[in-house]
C-alpha cells in the first residue's frame, strides 16, 4: 500500500463533515422525532395492552359477576359456570410451594456461598446457576413430567395408602417443579444482594467476637434483607406467571384438588392456555379468561411494584 493513499487531506474531511452538519438540520430533527417516537411507543404499547386486557376482562367480570368469579367452586365453560376459586387457589398454592421448596433454600444456599464457601466453589456454582436459570421452562416441565411425576406418584401412594385415589400430577409436583425452576434466579439475585454487604461490617462483627454463623445471620442477612426479599418476590412472580411447564404436571382438572397435594387441579395461566384454544372470541367464555388474566396481572404488578419500592428505598 502506498503511503500517499492513506494520507487524508484534513481540510477536506472537515469540510465534508461540516457540510454534513449543515446539510442535516432537517435530518437531525427527524432523528430526534424518531427517538422520541420510540419512547412514546413503549408507553402506548403498555397502555394499549392493559387497556385491551382490562376492557375484555372487566366485561367478563361484569357478566359473570366478580363474586362468582373469585369464589365460585365450579369452572365449567360448557355450562356457563365460571367459578375461578380453584384456579386462584392453584396458582397461589403452587407459587407459595415454590417459595418454600425453591426460593428459601436458594437464599440459604446463597448465604452459605457468600459467607462461608471457598471462592472456587462460589465461582463454579455461580456458573452452573447462570446456565440453569437460562434453561427454558418447558424443558423443566418435560423433565418433571417424565421423571418427577412417577416419583411423586409412588410417594403419594406410600403416604396415602396403596389404593387411595391419588396421582402424581397435582400441586405437589407443580410446587417442586416451580421451586426447581425459580431457585437459580432467586439464588443469583440473592448472591448479588449479599455481595453488596460492606466487608467492614463483617470485619467489625468478627472483631467483636461473633462467630461466622452470627456474622452471617445477624449482620449480613439483616443488611441485605431488602435485596433478598426482592429476590424472593421475583421468584414468586415468576412462579405465579409460569404457564406451560405447570400445565404439563398439574393434571388439568378444573376443580379444587380432591387430595390437596396429590390430585389434579389447575392454575390460572394453565387454564387460560387450555380454554383459549376452544373459546370463540367475543363470547363470555373468552372474556372470562381475560378476567382471570387480569387477576394474574394484578398479582404480578403488585408484587413487582412492591419490589421496585423496596429497591428505590434502598438506593435513597
Amino acid at each position: 500500500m502506498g503511503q500517499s493513499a492513506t494520507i487524508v487531506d484534513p481540510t477536506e474531511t472537515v469540510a465534508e463533515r461540516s457540510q454534513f452538519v449543515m446539510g442535516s438540520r432537517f435530518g437531525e430533527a427527524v432523528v430526534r422525532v424518531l427517538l422520541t417516537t420510540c419512547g412514546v411507543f413503549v408507553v402506548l404499547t403498555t397502555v394499549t395492552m392493559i387497556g385491551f386486557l382490562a376492557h375484555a376482562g372487566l366485561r367478563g367480570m361484569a357478566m359473570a359477576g366478580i363474586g362468582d368469579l373469585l369464589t365460585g367452586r365450579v369452572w365449567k365453560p360448557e355450562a356457563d359456570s365460571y367459578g375461578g376459586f380453584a384456579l386462584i387457589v392453584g396458582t397461589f398454592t403452587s407459587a407459595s410451594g415454590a417459595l418454600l421448596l425453591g426460593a428459601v433454600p436458594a437464599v440459604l444456599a446463597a448465604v452459605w456461598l457468600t459467607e462461608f464457601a471457598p471462592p472456587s466453589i462460589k465461582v463454579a456454582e455461580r456458573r452452573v446457576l447462570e446456565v440453569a436459570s437460562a434453561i427454558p421452562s418447558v424443558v423443566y416441565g418435560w423433565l418433571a413430567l417424565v421423571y418427577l411425576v412417577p416419583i411423586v406418584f409412588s410417594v403419594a401412594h406410600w403416604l396415602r395408602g396403596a389404593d387411595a385415589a391419588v396421582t402424581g400430577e397435582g400441586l405437589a409436583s407443580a410446587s417442586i417443579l416451580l421451586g426447581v425452576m425459580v431457585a437459580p434466579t432467586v439464588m443469583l439475585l440473592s448472591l448479588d444482594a449479599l455481595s453488596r454487604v460492606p466487608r467492614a461490617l463483617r470485619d467489625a462483627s468478627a472483631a467483636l467476637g461473633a462467630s461466622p454463623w452470627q456474622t452471617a445471620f445477624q449482620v449480613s442477612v439483616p443488611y441485605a434483607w431488602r435485596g433478598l426479599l426482592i429476590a424472593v418476590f421475583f421468584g414468586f412472580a415468576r412462579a405465579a406467571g409460569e404457564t406451560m411447564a405447570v400445565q404439563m404436571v398439574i393434571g388439568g382438572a378444573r376443580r379444587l384438588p380432591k387430595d390437596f397435594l396429590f390430585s389434579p387441579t389447575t392454575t390460572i395461566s394453565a387454564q387460560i392456555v387450555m380454554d383459549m384454544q376452544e373459546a370463540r372470541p367475543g363470547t363470555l367464555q373468552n372474556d372470562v379468561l381475560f378476567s382471570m388474566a387480569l387477576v394474574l396481572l394484578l398479582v404480578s404488578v403488585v408484587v413487582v411494584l412492591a419490589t421496585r419500592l423496596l429497591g428505590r428505598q434502598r438506593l435513597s
Partner: protein
Amino acid sequence: MTAARHSTGPGVLQRGRRAGSALELVLLSLLGVASILFAVGYVICLLYLLIKGAGKIASFTTYASPLAGVDNESAMRFVVAVCAFGVIAWAVLASCRAVASRYHWWTSSVDRVGVIVAVVVALGGGVIARDHLPRFLISLPSETTAGGGIGPEIFNTVYFAVLSTMITLPIGVGAAVYLARFARSPTFVAVVRIALDTLASLPSIVYGLFGFLVFVVEMKMGYSLFAGAVVLALLNLPLVVGIAEESIVAVPQELDEASLALGATPIQTTARVTLPYAWPGILSALVLSIGRVFAESAPLIMTAGTTISRASAYSLNPFRGGETLAVHLWYVNSAGLSPDRVEVSAGTAAVLVVLVGLTNLLAARLARLGGAEGTRVRKATR
C-alpha cells in the same frame, strides 16, 4: 467456646474468627452440603438431558435421509450442514491459532489461508453431508407415528429470533438512546420507566392473550409467525431497553464532550461515538433476548399456533403459522400421540438447551467486551 485468636490483619481477622458453637458448626456443614448438592443436581440434570438427547440425534445418523419434497428443504439442509461444519472448522482454526501463536508461527498470511481453508471445509462439508445429516434434525415432525423430526421447528426458532430482533433492535435501542441522552421532560421519562417496569412485570401469558386478541382476532390474520414475533419483541423490550440504556449511560462523559467540542451535533455524537462504544452491551442485550425467544412458549402457542404445515414448512413467508422447538416440546407431550415422544422430547430439549446455552455464552462474552475493554474502543484509541 474458644477465645478469639490473635489476628494481625484484616484478611486474617476474617479467617481467624472464632468458629462458633458445635450446633452452629453442624448446621453450617449441613448448609454447605445442601448448597453444593443444589448445584450438582442441576449439572446432573443437564448432562443427563444432553446425553439422552445426543443419543436420540445420533441414532438417526446411520442412513441417508430422503427429501420430504418440501420447498426449500435442500437449502435448509445445506445451511444446517454448513453451520455444523463451520463450527467444527472454526473450533479447529481457533485452537490452531492459540497453539501456533504461542510459538510465533502464526502470521497474517497463514491466518488468511487458515480462514479460506475453514470456509472451504464448511461449504464442502455442507455439500457432501447435506443428505447424510442426523435425520432427526432435518425431517418433518410426526404427530401419530414414530420417527418424527424437528427440522421445521429449528428453522422456525431461528426465524423467530431474526424477525423479533428486527423489531426489538430499532425500537429498543431508539428508546434507550432517547432515555439516556435526549429526553428533556423528567415527567415523561418517569412515565416511560413506569411503562417499562409494567411491561417487565407482565406474565408472558398476558402477552400471548394480547397478541391473540389483536392479531388473530381483531386483524383476522390467523396464527402467524409475524404475530408471534411482534409479541416476543414486546416481551423483550424492557430487557433490551434496560441493558442498552445502562451501557449507553456507562459511556464516559469525556468522549461525548470531546465529540461535541469538535463540532459534531448530538445525533452525530450518538451515532458515531456513543453507540459504537456501547455496542457490545447492546449486542449482549440482543443476544440475551434471542435466548428468551428460544425459550418462550406460552405466547407463541396463542399467536403462532402449534402446527407445522407440510406445504410451507420452510417458507420465509412471515404470515404463516408454525411452532418453535419449545412449543414442540410441550405439544408432543400434551397432545402428540407418537409412540416415541419421550425420545423426540429428549432430542428437542437437548437441541433447545444447546441453542440457549450458546446464546448465553455469546452474551456473556460480548458483555465482557463492553466498556473500557471494548474492541472498538481499543481500535479507536490505538
